[in-house]
């Protein structure tokens, strides 16, 4: 039996649907849109309840974060955010960035004062001295001002560096830790900076052991969804490192996402990252078939080809990294990738390929070409994640092979100046994340945050694609800017297509799920530079209202 009808009213409804672009009322029944138009159009379906709480707002399809990591939710659960970048927390509150060392010390002192048990470590995340003003290292001497007895551990935004105080160095016996990543001063004493996991391991074990090795904490799922929801997302991707094939982890995920108050849908990629072989990847993916629920969907298998550009580990075509000419790291060997991609393709899986730099993308394109030549598949929707240095020639081959992309547009803002000065140089920095060309060539392009690498905030991400402004205010490659409409489409319909969910979400249309974002302003009517500052009033997921910060 059909359920009751709710009609939501709005100042304007942006449908992102080709047939009818605007409306003022949408009728929802059983979580599905049944009508769209004005109130009379909706009334034709019979008795309804009018919900006009968002009557002065602008309704649009729920935003879709097409690449993120569940780790974000775990960090919010286990550590204090103390980074230099503004970030919304799971309650929707904006945490202002702290971009000086004295400011950081002050904030840590406040947090320290709130801890009762003197042996409880103080754990923070998100720090990044390269974004501080002035740029200054964080040392144990700074952190010793906070406490000489309580262990302190701060994780860098990249998750590749940590900063600790003397109490942690003593507790974890760093006098005997020989890893080269333990930075030392001229007298041989550790400075408190620990580079890479090998050097961080002993400190993590001593202060934050529950952050490593797989957590089944329900809070990580809620936080992950809430942070995105607060900024208008109704669907967020968990990008492939999680272990849903582990029964305990799957159970925790199903319990959390199965609750009626769970505030967003998670589309989880299968794990092709920590699972070593194609056979196991295919077996694990098959074992999860039909195992999801309304808010946990398994789609696509994520594989890694290279590292990160800001970490100098992306695989570039010549001339390599700026000045040094060096190249980055393959995550798997090219020969292996040339057999892995066809194996996954032949198994009927959608391949989601992390290719940060252009040589990695080139290799993936070649591997798909091999797979397609032997076993042509239509509508496979393989796509590249990041694709930061794609050019027209690579993208034409992608278009020919049916490969699409979600771009890492946030890099333009957060690391645009860094890439210009340190990794790519002027031309390639200006050509990064070429959304306009991608769309012109017919690729279905989306954009993403890769949180926790950069903050999950779909409005910020589409602002980046539309404006291409660095943190210093420079416009990188103005020709690659996209219109606000295209930017919205990237974060809705296009992202839904990449996730094989465009028949259900990504636009507001009769028959699709009632997943909406409610904004205080019309993103198509304002200066695109204002997109990132639009207030989110709430979201609606399957017809259920979630207030901002719900």
């Amino acid at each position, binding site marked *: 039996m059909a359920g009751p009808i709710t009609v939501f009213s709005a100042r304007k409804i942006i449908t992102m649907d080709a047939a009818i672009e605007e409306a003022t009322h949408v009728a929802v029944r059983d979580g599905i849109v049944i009508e769209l138009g004005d109130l009379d159009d909706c009334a034709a379906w019979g008795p309804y309840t009018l919900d006009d709480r968002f009557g002065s707002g602008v309704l649009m399809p729920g935003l879709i974060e097409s690449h993120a990591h569940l780790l974000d939710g775990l960090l919010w659960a286990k550590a204090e955010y103390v980074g230099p970048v503004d970030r919304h927390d799971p309650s929707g509150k904006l945490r202002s960035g702290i971009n000086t060392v004295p400011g950081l010390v002050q904030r840590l002192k406040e947090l320290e004062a709130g801890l009762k048990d003197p042996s409880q470590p103080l754990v923070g995340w998100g720090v990044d001295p390269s974004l501080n003003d002035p740029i200054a290292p964080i040392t144990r001497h700074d952190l010793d001002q906070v406490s000489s007895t309580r262990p302190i551990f701060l994780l860098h935004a990249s998750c590749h560096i940590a900063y600790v105080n003397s109490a942690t160095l003593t507790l974890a*016996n760093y*006098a*005997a*830790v*020989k*890893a*080269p*990543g*333990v930075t030392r001063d001229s007298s041989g004493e550790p400075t408190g900076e620990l580079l*890479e*996991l*090998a*050097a*961080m*391991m*002993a400190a993590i*074990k001593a202060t934050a052991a529950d952050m*490593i*090795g797989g957590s089944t904490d329900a809070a990580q799922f809620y936080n992950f969804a809430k942070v995105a929801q607060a900024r208008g997302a109704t669907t967020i991707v968990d990008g492939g490192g999680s272990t849903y094939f582990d029964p305990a982890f799957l159970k925790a995920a199903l319990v959390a996402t199965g609750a009626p108050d769970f505030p967003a849908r998670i589309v989880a990629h299968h794990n092709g*990252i*920590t699972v*070593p*072989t194609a056979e196991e990847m295919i077996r694990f993916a098959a074992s999860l078939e039909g195992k999801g629920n309304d808010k946990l969907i398994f789609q696509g298998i994520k594989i890694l080809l290279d590292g990160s550009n800001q970490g100098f580990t992306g*695989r570039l075509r010549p001339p390599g990294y700026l000045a040094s000419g060096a*190249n980055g*790291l*393959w*995550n*798997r*060997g*090219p*020969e*292996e990738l040339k057999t892995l991609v066809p194996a996954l393709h032949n198994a009927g899986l959608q391949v989601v390929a992390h290719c940060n730099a252009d*040589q990695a993308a080139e*290799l993936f394109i070649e591997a798909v070409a091999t797979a397609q030549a032997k076993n042509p598949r239509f509508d496979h929707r393989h796509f590249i994640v990041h694709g930061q240095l794609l050019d027209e020639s690579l993208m034409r081959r992608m278009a020919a092979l049916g490969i699409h992309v979600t771009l890492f547009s946030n890099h333009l803002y957060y690391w645009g100046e860094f890439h210009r000065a340190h990794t790519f140089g002027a031309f390639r920095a200006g050509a990064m994340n070429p959304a306009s060309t991608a769309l012109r060539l017919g690729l279905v392009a989306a954009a993403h945050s890769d949180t926790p690498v950069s903050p999950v905030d779909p409005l910020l991400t589409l602002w980046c694609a539309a404006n291409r402004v660095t943190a210093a205010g420079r416009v990188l490659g103005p020709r690659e800017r996209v219109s606000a409409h295209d930017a919205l489409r990237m974060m809705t319909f296009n992202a839904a297509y990449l996730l094989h969910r465009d028949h259900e979400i990504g636009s507001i249309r009769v028959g699709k799920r009632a997943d909406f974002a409610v904004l205080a302003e019309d993103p198509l009517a304002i200066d695109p530079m204002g997109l990132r500052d639009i207030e989110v009033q709430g979201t609606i997921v399957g017809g259920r209202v979630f207030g901002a910060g719900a």
Partner: protein
Amino acid sequence: MDCLPVTVPVTILGGYLGAGKTTLLNRLLADVQGVRLTVLVNDFGEVNIDASLIANRDGETISLANGCVCCSIGDNLGLTLYDLAERPDGPEHILIEASGVADPARIAGYAGCHPRLCLDGIVVLADAETVQARAGDRYVGDVVRQQLAAADLIVLSRTDLLDASATRSVRDWIEAEMPGARVQEASAMSRLAQLLLAGGGGTMDMPSSSSSSSSSGKHDSLFAAWRLASALPLDGAALRRALAALPPAVLRAKGIVSLAEAPGRRFVLQLVGRRWSLEPEVRSDGSALAGPSEVVAIGLAGQLDMDQLEALFAPTLPAGLPRAVAVLLRQEDRA
């Protein structure tokens, strides 16, 4: 034994895909004796050990009757290694198989992730048939070169498929590309495996083992050893000079020495290829011991120039020491 090893040496085995790492590991696990070795591998499915040697198989871990263990690196090498070092019944030596595209120097960083662990050496296998072509490949050329550059010891595999002149030419190419490289042929994989572990446990109890040629057990005729022994402390500066100048034929050296500059304690010498370390001896009870000095250098039979080594190490002996006190043992090991 009154002194449990407090330091666990870690060897990195690198090399591009197909260079023969798994073959070497399979043999190593079956052959090794006298050392509780744990091998961490990338592709657990490739490990192929004679069923008769397996004592227990539990998920991603195989325990062998000889005390060795093989387990999967899993998704976090740091965590796996750290937890291993925490085990009271843990290994005496750890060997990590680096993935075929990994930079072994980066993996070597993990060898210091726990206070008990220390890097023993980086051994990189190179397929003699393909290494040169791979080094020119547009996708992996830089990776292959980086691996070779990181090696303390390069081992050429598949030389049995090449004639002598082709092998010679590959060696020449490596030596030209990587000045100072130590290159050896893996014509006998299982023996090579023993050489990799010749350091044994982290401490050497010289007095009790001085009667045998080395603590790693016997070397067969493939290898030759040269030995220096002195009842009096050695000259540390001269010893360091000698170690830095060792000929490429020395594949492995180890020793425990007293130095004139630091009386009252001993130092542990470890050398793999061109990497060597001379560190104060660490004993589990925190005590320091003085005692006689002994250094053993190992290389392939026929390649080790004993006279050259003797001349090289002569300045390390206390000046003016009567020949009768400085006992120079010179010995070729036999099986």
